[in-house]
C-alpha cells in the first residue's frame, strides 16, 4: 500500500507540534537528574525553572522555547516504502505542515531573507525548511524527525591534521565550551555532538546529527568510540559549569555523542554542535497501513547507515 501525502502532512504537523511543545522523555529525565545533582543555590533555582517550564509547555501547548530556530525535517525512508505522490509530494506535505503549525501554535516566524531580512511569516523560503534524507533497507515505513534548534552559539569546526589525534578532539571540545559555554550562551545543560572525520562538511553534519538525532544515554556501536563518548562527557562536566554557565555541580552536558566517518589519510576534520536544554525533536513514523506512531528515539542512525564495505 502506498503512503498518502495526507498522512505525511499529518505526521509532519504532529512531529513539529511535539518538537515545539514536548521534551522527549530522555531529555526530560536527564534534566530532572541534573536538577537533583545540583548543589549550588543559583543553578539549582535555574534547573527547577527549566524542569517546570518543560511541564508547562506540554500542559499549555506552548513552545518550550520562543526561538523555534530554523525548523527542519530529517526523513528516514524505508527502501520498500512507496508514496502516492512521490518524494516531491512528501516535500510539499512537509512545507504545508510547517506553515500550518507555525500559525496554529503561534510559533515565531523565524525564517528571513539573509540579506534584506524580509520575513514571509510562514517559516518557508529558499532552502527552508531543510529536508535531509537517508534510506533504510527492508523497511516499508517512513519516519519524520522534526528538529527545532537555535543556532548562534556552540558550534565549531576545526581542520585537524594527522598529528593532532585524540588530544586535538579533547582540546577542540574544551575550546568550544570556553568560547560559548562559560557565559551560558549555549543555554546549558546541553547535548554535545562531535563529528570526527569524513569530509569537512560531513564532519560538521554528523556532529549536528549526533547532537540532535540520538537519545541521551545511547552509545556508538564501536566500543572505542563509546568509550570516547564517556570520556568527553566526563571532560565537559569537569569544568565546574552548571545551568546557565553558573558554577555548579549539575553538569554542563547531559550527554556527548560522537559520530565518525572515514576520512582523508592525512587529515581529521572536527565538527562540534551543542543543543540547548530546550532540546527539541518530534518523531513520527508512518506505517504502510497509514498508522502514525509517535516514537521517543529517532531511527536516523542504524547499522546500515554506519556500514563499511558495500
Amino acid at each position, binding site marked *: 500500500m502506498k503512503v498518502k501525502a495526507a498522512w505525511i502532512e499529518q505526521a509532519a504537523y504532529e512531529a513539529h507540534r511535539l518538537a515545539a511543545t514536548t521534551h522527549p522523555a530522555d531529555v526530560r529525565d536527564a534534566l530532572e537528574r541534573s536538577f537533583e545533582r545540583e548543589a549550588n543555590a*543559583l543553578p539549582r533555582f535555574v534547573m527547577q525553572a527549566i524542569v517546570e*517550564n518543560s511541564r*508547562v509547555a506540554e500542559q499549555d501547548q506552548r513552545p518550550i522555547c520562543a526561538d523555534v530556530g530554523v525548523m527542519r525535517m530529517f526523513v528516514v525512508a524505508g527502501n520498500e516504502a512507496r508514496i502516492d505522490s512521490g518524494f516531491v509530494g512528501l516535500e510539499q506535505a512537509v512545507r504545508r505542515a510547517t506553515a500550518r503549525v507555525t500559525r496554529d501554535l503561534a510559533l515565531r516566524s523565524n525564517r528571513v531573507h539573509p540579506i534584506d*531580512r524580509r520575513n514571509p511569516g510562514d517559516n518557508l523560503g529558499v532552502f527552508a525548511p531543510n529536508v535531509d534524507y537517508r534510506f533504510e533497507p527492508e523497511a516499508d515505513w517512513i519516519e519524520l524527525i522534526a528538529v527545532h534548534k537555535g543556532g548562534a*552559539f556552540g558550534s565549531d569546526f576545526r581542520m585537524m591534521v594527522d598529528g593532532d589525534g585524540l588530544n586535538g578532539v579533547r582540546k577542540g571540545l*574544551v575550546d568550544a565550551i570556553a568560547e*560559548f559555554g562559560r557565559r551560558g550562551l549555549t543555554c546549558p545543560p546541553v547535548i554535545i555532538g562531535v563529528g570526527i572525520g569524513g569530509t569537512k562538511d560531513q564532519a560538521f553534519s554528523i556532529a549536528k546529527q549526533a547532537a540532535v538525532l540520538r537519545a541521551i544515554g545511547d552509545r556508538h556501536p564501536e566500543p572505542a568510540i563509546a568509550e570516547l563518548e564517556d570520556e568527553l562527557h566526563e571532560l565537559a562536566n*569537569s*569544568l565546574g559549569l552548571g545551568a546557565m554557565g553558573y558554577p555548579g555541580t549539575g553538569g554542563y552536558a547531559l550527554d556527548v555523542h560522537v559520530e565518525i566517518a572515514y576520512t582523508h589519510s592525512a587529515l581529521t576534520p572536527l565538527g562540534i554542535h551543542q543543543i540547548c536544554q530546550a532540546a527539541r525533536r518530534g518523531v513520527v513514523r508512518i506505517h504502510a497501513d497509514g498508522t502514525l506512531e509517535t516514537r521517543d528515539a529517532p531511527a536516523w542512525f542504524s547499522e546500515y547507515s554506519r556500514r563499511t564495505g558495500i
Partner: protein
Amino acid sequence: MKIHRLTIPLSEADVRGLEVGDVVFLDGKVHTGRALVYQHVLERGHDIPLDVAAVSNVQMHAAPAGQEESPGRYRISSIQATASFRYGRWVPEYVRRFGIRAVIGKGGMDAAIYREVFAETGTVFLTTVGYGIAALYGRGVRGVEAVYWKDELGLPEALWVIDTAGFGPFIVDGDCQGASLAEDAISRVNPCFEAAYRGLAPHVLKRIGEIDQSLDQEVIAGNAGHPSGRAS
C-alpha cells in the same frame, strides 16, 4: 536569594535596591526590541508612539513566539530573551534617551556598560532564567497591548508592547553598583578550564587571530558602546 515583585513603571529606588543574584517578578507593560528596532529608532530616527519612560520603562531583547490572529489582534504563546551583548552599541543611548530602568536579556552585557552607564542612569540588567523558559514566561503575558512597525520590520522584530502579570522569574545580572553576575561566574569557573587545558597541546594548524590564552578573551568583548567600542 532575595525575591522582589515590582510594578512597571519602575522607580529609581526600585532598581537601586536590587543586587546581582536577586530574583525579580514584574507586573505591567514591557516592550520588546532587537537590532531592527534599535536601528529604526536610533539610526533612522523614528519616534516610538508611546511614552516609554512613563508607561514601559522595561525593555526586553525579545522576538516573541506570536502570531496575528486577526487584523490588529495578536497572541503570544511563548517569549524569552535573546543574547544581549550584540546590542551593546545601542543600549547606552537607548537607556539614556528613554529612561529605561531594566533591560531584560540573555547572557548579560559587557560589564563596562553596567559600570559606566547603568550605575549613573539607575538601570539594571535582568537575565532570563535558563535562557529559555519561554512557556513559563508566556504564562506571565496577559495580552498584547500594541505592535508597532510590523510591516517595516517583520512581525517577530517589531516593537511589541505586552501587558504582564507575575512576569518572571528573572535574575539580576547587572546591578546599579556595576557588579556582573556572569563575569563573577566566569572568574570562578576559569580555574577548572585551566586544569583541563593543562596537558592539551595546541592544534597543529592554527587559525588567524588565534590566541594561546583563550580564557583571557571572551566572545562578547568589545560590544560596549558605539562607534569607538567604549560605552558612551
